[in-house]
């Protein structure tokens, strides 16, 4: 990791209010940092989820550093876009993105799931500035986003709304209630992103409770469906742009991802859904990610 990655100018750039439009290379850098954050915080906490956060890291970075119009230092900024992770269990990636973008100090990541930290196991509006609505019970987030979109419609506000969902989460009926609603009201300010990593707690989504053909389901509920390569930054940006430009229907990006992406021994293995790497495993992972625990935890604790 390059030292200037943490220069004042770098922080200023990453924390700048409004919509950032970073170039692909820079987004890739940031996504790498996010993965380092995830492993480091999990190694410290020794509790939490590894698989989903890693599969969300690339489109999550694109969302926070290229798509969202937000002011991290002023989370209630009236002009803000709204983002929501309906899969509350992926807090490692949520908090990493928030901290890297400037909602709170990076050092808070080192208190993940700790009694004396605000970074709760699942997103808590009560504890973390920038978390507007709590999550953790699957299937509820898209409904919240429907409400945010309806509020924007009532106020003629240009706000865009982004909701990250899981593929296993598609099994919750409330998702389809919310999908039907957004389709009915043609909420084109709304963009869903499905982390299609093909896995959930007990195994492959296809064998646990098949959700395919997922694109046809969403289309039949009145949505514009945009498949994309979830770890190909260029394709992710293309998908977000397509969603942004589409009028007349809500759009859903089906991001084809790999659970645990970025850490070879975690990749594509559902057993990493909900557990953290042991310290020695974390060292191995961080090595693959081009750093080590000492260096990266120091970076986090220093900001």
């Amino acid at each position, binding site marked *: 990791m390059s030292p200037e990655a943490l220069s004042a100018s770098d922080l200023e750039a990453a924390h700048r209010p409004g919509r950032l439009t970073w170039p692909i290379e820079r987004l890739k850098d940031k996504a790498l940092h996010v993965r380092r954050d995830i492993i480091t915080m999990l190694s410290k906490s020794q509790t939490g989820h590894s698989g989903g956060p890693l599969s969300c890291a690339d489109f999550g970075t694109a969302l926070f550093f290229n798509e969202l119009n937000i002011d991290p230092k002023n989370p209630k900024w009236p002009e803000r876009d709204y983002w929501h992770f309906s899969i509350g269990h992926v807090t490692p990636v949520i908090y990493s993105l928030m901290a890297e973008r400037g909602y709170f100090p990076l050092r808070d990541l080192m208190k993940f799931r700790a009694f004396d930290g605000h970074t709760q196991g699942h997103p808590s509006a009560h504890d973390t500035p920038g978390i507007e609505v709590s999550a953790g019970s699957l299937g509820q987030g898209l*409904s*919240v986003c429907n*409400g*945010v979109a309806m509020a924007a419609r009532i106020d003629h506000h240009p706000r865009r709304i982004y909701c990250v969902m899981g593929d296993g989460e598609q099994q919750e009926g409330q998702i389809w*209630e919310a999908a*039907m*609603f957004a389709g*009915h009201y043609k909420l084109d300010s709304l963009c869903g992103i499905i982390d299609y990593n093909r896995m959930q707690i007990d195994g492959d989504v296809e064998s646990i409770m098949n959700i395919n053909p997922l694109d046809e389901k969403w289309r039949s509920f009145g949505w514009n469906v945009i498949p994309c390569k979830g770890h190909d930054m260029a394709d992710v940006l293309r998908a977000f742009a397509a969603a942004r430009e589409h009028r007349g229907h809500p759009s859903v990006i089906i991001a084809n991802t790999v659970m645990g992406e970025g850490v070879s021994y975690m990749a594509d293995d559902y057993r990493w859904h909900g557990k953290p790497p042991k310290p020695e495993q974390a060292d191995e992972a961080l090595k693959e990610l081009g750093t080590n625990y000492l260096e990266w935890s120091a970076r986090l604790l220093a900001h």
Partner: protein
Amino acid sequence: MTATITLPEKVEMKKTREGFGRALVDLGEQDPRIVVLVGDLSESTMVHFFAEKFPDRFIQVGIAEQNMCGIAAGLAAMGKIPFFATYGAFASCRAADQIRVTVAYSNLNVKIAGAHGGISVGPDGATHQAMEEISIIRSIPNMTMLVPCDFWETYKATIAAAKHQGPVYLRFGREDVPVVTSKETPFTFGKGEVFAEGKDLTLIACGVMVYEALRARETLAERGYSARVINLHTLKPIDRDLIVHAARETGAIVTAEEHQVNGGLGGAVAEVVVQSAPVPMELVAVHDRFGQSGKPAELMDAFGLRAKDIVAAAEKVLERKRVR
């Protein structure tokens, strides 16, 4: 607060839910942040008044209570004051997880209207007679709960719910019920109202049972007992002081509610009493059984939710008080 209520021979009858529907219209005029949502029950919940006047702030969700609750949360997160309405059975049960996690844990300014509470719902039968609402909502942190007793109080409770910052659950019934309060009767969110003074025992009631309690008081008076009557319209936060004083000063309590006995008004009062002033209590309520079809009056009789049942409970508790 005391507002002595004395009932005339013949009492005007009116629907509590109409008080809700009327209040929404007045709120809509005063405050542009008010938004109303419904799950395909516009007329039964009487939000149709609001829908006609403020179509742009009315959201038809269809038959999807979970989604409706989440939408309300999103609206509240954006500074709106959403009221969502459906039958109490579905508001409190179908959306329980959404109320707990999305609304209450986020402490969002969502107002939940549960129509058709109680056995008096009548012919629709058990599934539509919500009688678990108080137990469920009381148990969820950050939630508050109002159970108004008549048309006027429901009107005031709805206004008060809008003014209160935070989630509120409003419970009201289906049928015409006696109007025991007036436009002027005081209503304070979080406080019970003493509707009649008394020294021998205290009758604590909510909803339509307040009327039955006032009638019971008349009978008890004839029998030489002076019963205090408290209208505990706010189930949560509960008015501890009022209850403790009543327990200390009158030494016996009868609670009356159109709700399951487990964890309801009686349970809430019992929790306060044992921690501060243990006195004999009798609980007039539905005793852990499902409702059934029938005329509201038949059911109120059959389920023992009448003034006479309160009187019987009162005499029992007075006896227990004496022999202590």
